[in-house]
């Protein structure tokens, strides 16, 4: 990939005092965090903690009621189109069009991001090769397995060479082999191309192994944030999973 490592002077994400309220309930409550360029950042929390709402705000799908989001220094409320050029997104549910082939889906993404037509075949070839799915180029998406779809979605998210990608539960529902392949690709993306990876996951063993920084959210607020080892030490546990359980335990319960 001809993509250069991230050299932006800005943090990949700066979220400042984000608030989102649904039907009188504050789902995200004064949330602030920073994701440094080039790191794998895991955003963890129990179901209903506000992770998905936060990702929707970060990816401009939802406007925050209060607060500010800077993506590579670009204010996503003031200039959403410019902010969107800086990131790629892989949602938890597949967003490929099942009635189109892999190549057609990728071509459409290129059009959305105004990649010049002469460049598109080479870019598509490159990302397909990067994720080892070149031979599925002409397959209809509806005929692919979950693991292949996920790899193609990540490949698609990289077509416009973003400095940051959001991955919402990237390995959910994948078998161990597919998960391993996916993580190998993600590590390579980070180490060779400096891509910042923001992810959510319930597989905490994977997060402990691959992420550099973790933020834990509960009831719309960050309860802890920092390096994986620091969070484990701080919670005085032996693993991230145990630390996570103790940090997110409801009052009165023992994790």
């Amino acid at each position, binding site marked *: 990939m001809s993509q250069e490592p991230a050299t932006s002077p800005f943090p990949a994400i700066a979220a400042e005092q984000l608030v989102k309220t649904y039907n009188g309930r504050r789902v995200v409550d004064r949330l602030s965090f920073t994701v440094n360029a080039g790191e794998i950042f895991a955003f963890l929390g129990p179901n209903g903690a506000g992770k998905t709402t936060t990702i929707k705000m970060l*990816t401009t*799908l939802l406007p925050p009621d209060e607060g500010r989001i800077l993506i590579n220094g670009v204010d996503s409320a003031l200039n959403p*189109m410019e902010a969107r050029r800086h990131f790629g997104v892989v949602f938890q549910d597949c967003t490929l069009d099942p009635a189109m082939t892999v190549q057609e889906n990728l071509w459409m*993404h290129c059009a959305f991001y105004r990649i010049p037509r002469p460049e598109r075949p080479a870019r598509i070839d490159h990302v397909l090769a990067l994720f080892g799915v070149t031979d599925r180029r002409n397959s209809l998406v509806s005929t692919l397995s979950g693991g292949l779809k996920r790899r193609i979605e990540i490949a698609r998210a990289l077509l416009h060479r973003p400095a940051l990608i959001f991955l919402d539960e990237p390995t959910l529902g994948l078998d161990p082999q597919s998960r391993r392949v996916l993580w190998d690709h993600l590590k390579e993306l980070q180490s060779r191309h400096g891509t910042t990876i923001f992810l959510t996951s319930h597989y905490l063993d994977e997060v402990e192994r691959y992420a550099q920084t973790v933020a834990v959210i509960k009831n719309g607020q960050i309860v802890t944030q920092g390096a994986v080892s620091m969070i484990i030490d701080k919670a005085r546990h032996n693993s991230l999973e145990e630390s996570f359980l103790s940090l997110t335990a409801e009052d009165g319960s023992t994790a």
Partner: protein
Amino acid sequence: MIDVLFCLWLRQVRGFLRARGRVVSAFAQPFIFLVALGLGFAPVFRKAGEGDYFTFLAPGVIGAGILFNAIYSGADLLWDRQFGFIKETLVSPVSRHWILLGRALGVASVALIQALVVGMTCLVLSATWPGLGQCLTIFVFALLVALLFAFFGSILGSVMSDAQSFSQIVNFTVTPIFYLSGAVFPLEGQSSLIRGLAFCNPLTYGIDGMRGGLSGHYIIAPSVSFIILAFSTLVTACIAQYAFSRIRP
């Protein structure tokens, strides 16, 4: 942006052509209308001195095909909202106006392809051969009807959240639009209530424009029909843009 519009247009057309069930039902439905209404009413129509019923019915069947096809395309949008593809478009650096316009053009094109096939069949059955000018008039009105109801389908697809009730609500909406448009019976001689309701229905102006283009007999002046239909399309497009801009996946 032309590239984005083209890709979204192509997606709708490709999606239609690849779904064999949709292709079959899209072409079968107008033929059922033709056979059921055409064969049943033609002798009565002729006896009443109203001329050839197939010639009369052709614009109505074309209009019905466009109406049903375009409005039901709202289900595609609902499907995209529920199963993800819409998110890919909404996080891309493309304005929602263009996304909706690309979809609507695709839906309108699919409806026009269907209308073309059905129209040709009707003309063969009625042994009527319109000239280029007539074809152009019919095409302009068919295009406006297709765009109008493509945007209308987008409104339904944007505001509704329940796929199961979509078809019920669409049936409830489409049936009066179709039957109160002069598609299957002439509006002349109808009660003032029926005529009043029909003239509130934008499809009436499309059907009358197409029928007049074919036969030369207009109930409403074609320029008036064109202006009303164009204005209705514009208003519906604006409402569709507003509804689409409010989508929160």
